[in-house]
């Protein structure tokens, strides 16, 4: 039953990720006074791409062909670890939050390799930028998550979230810092506006798009789907770690339905905030990104320090 639940939850992750992307796009369009595409447009795009014949460059090696499958499956595996609508998951007992960060790193490694594989200038440029940013974002992300794991004294996400849930409303200074740090890291890692613009193909600024420029057809569909999944994963992490109220603790139909509604509401709200910030903030120069990410790291570190100084028992 538990394993069935975990599989169902992962399916739900994969199914809802394009909807979140569509909702985000809808919010952004409305904020910019444009007519918005339908919420289901990302599904249609994915479907259309899957049916198209992929075109592969002559120089491409086997690595280029298998990379989309590896990236997508690693992201789905990362999704199995994160509790979406119910906390008590067998999958998150076998893999903790560090494994999840590892899955992300694995997917990113293959994405960077695929970018380099074709040998175009853009692919290599995108790969080098992505690795630069991720090498700075990863420690900040771990710092933010460690604050949670220190408070709950476990790295298992399920147990940590139910710990936060059962503790009731406790104002923790460390969680405030960790929340800000995780939001900053999430924006950098999912390639949203101040760091990378997902909607541009302007050669000087793109990072993620530069790496996947050579992909087409079902390969492109898988990579797009994986990046939508990643966006949703970060959203769920932020929503469920810091505002876990509503998530199901038992596997009753009512609790699960309520959990689904709660997480969809929380994600919709987060997407609205993201859309507003993307509309207000201009993209940073690439060399400012390290300042931005070191600020995120600083916040994560302050979170940990304030956990030790202000909250821990002495």
């Amino acid at each position: 039953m538990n394993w069935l639940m975990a599989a169902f939850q992962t399916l739900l992750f994969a199914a809802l990720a394009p909807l979140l992307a569509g909702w985000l796009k809808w919010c952004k369009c409305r904020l910019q006074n444009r007519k918005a595409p339908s919420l289901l447009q990302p599904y249609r795009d994915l479907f259309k791409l899957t049916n198209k014949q992929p075109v592969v460059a002559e120089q491409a090696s086997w690595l280029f062909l298998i990379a989309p499958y590896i990236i997508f499956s690693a992201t789905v595996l990362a999704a199995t670890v994160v509790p979406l609508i119910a906390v008590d998951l067998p999958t998150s007992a076998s893999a903790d939050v560090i494994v999840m960060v590892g899955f992300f790193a694995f997917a990113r490694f293959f994405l960077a390799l695929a970018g380099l594989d074709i040998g175009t200038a853009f692919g290599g440029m995108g790969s080098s930028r992505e690795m630069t940013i991720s090498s700075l974002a990863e420690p900040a992300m771990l710092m933010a998550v460690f604050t949670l794991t220190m408070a709950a004294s476990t790295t298992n996400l399920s147990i940590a979230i139910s710990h936060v849930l059962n503790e009731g409303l406790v104002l923790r200074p460390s969680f405030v810092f960790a929340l800000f740090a995780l939001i900053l890291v999430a924006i950098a890692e999912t390639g949203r506006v101040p760091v990378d613009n997902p909607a541009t193909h302007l050669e000087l600024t793109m990072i993620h798009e530069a790496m996947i420029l050579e992909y087409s057809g079902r390969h492109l569909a898988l990579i797009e789907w994986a990046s939508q999944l990643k966006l949703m994963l970060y959203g769920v992490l932020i929503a469920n770690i810091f505002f876990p109220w509503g998530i199901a603790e038992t596997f009753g139909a009512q609790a699960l339905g309520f959990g689904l509604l709660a997480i969809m509401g929380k994600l919709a709200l987060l997407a609205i905030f993201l859309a507003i910030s993307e509309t207000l903030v201009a993209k940073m120069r690439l060399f400012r990104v390290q300042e931005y990410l070191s600020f995120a790291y600083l916040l994560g570190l302050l979170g940990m320090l304030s956990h030790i100084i202000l909250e821990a028992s002495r």
Partner: protein
Amino acid sequence: MNIIQQDFYTQAILSLAALVGLTSFLMLGQGRLLRLIFVFAAQGLLLTLTTAVAAYSLNNHHLYISAVLTLTLKVIFIPWMLRREVIQMNTHRDIEALHNQTAVMLGGATLMVFSYYVLHPIVQTTSAVMLNALAVSLSVVLLGMLLMISHRQAVAHVVGFMSIENGLFFAAIVATNGMPMVVELGVAFDVLVAAVLFGIFFFHIRTSIDSLDVDLLNRLHEVDK
């Protein structure tokens, strides 16, 4: 001291103390004047929240008046005045190159540790919560002084001075559970008068050296002409 055993008031005070400390660090590393003033206003807002939380949980009604005073003076009036000054001087597009920013930030961290070290003995007479709140406010005072030392613009000096006052105010609210009304009114008007005086000083500095960069004050007028 475990945070789960504390009441809601203590948790809120600790969170606000942490955020006030963070805003002090943000001000220290800020090169743009308008953003510096914005962070200063945010610190004022946190102080307002602290006062309001104290007023609510201690059931101390005159603290609400103090909160409103803080809101109008430190969040709205003084930042507005400084902002207008900066825009009039046309310095809002300059980025002040901070000498040795890393050293200054490290110095700030050292000051924070130092204030914990200095205040550690009071844990024997009072609670650990008070130690944290007082240590944060002492470090806000020290960081304000460091801000005044490390920045060159006169506006930044004023912001540093005001943030010293913010640190003292935070300590006063947390430690005394609300000062007498007369004291609070006196402090508020002191700040107001200080702000007006600084405005006049700005005017004089600007008319005499045509800039608000205080490093220029070191030069002798006759020699460098």
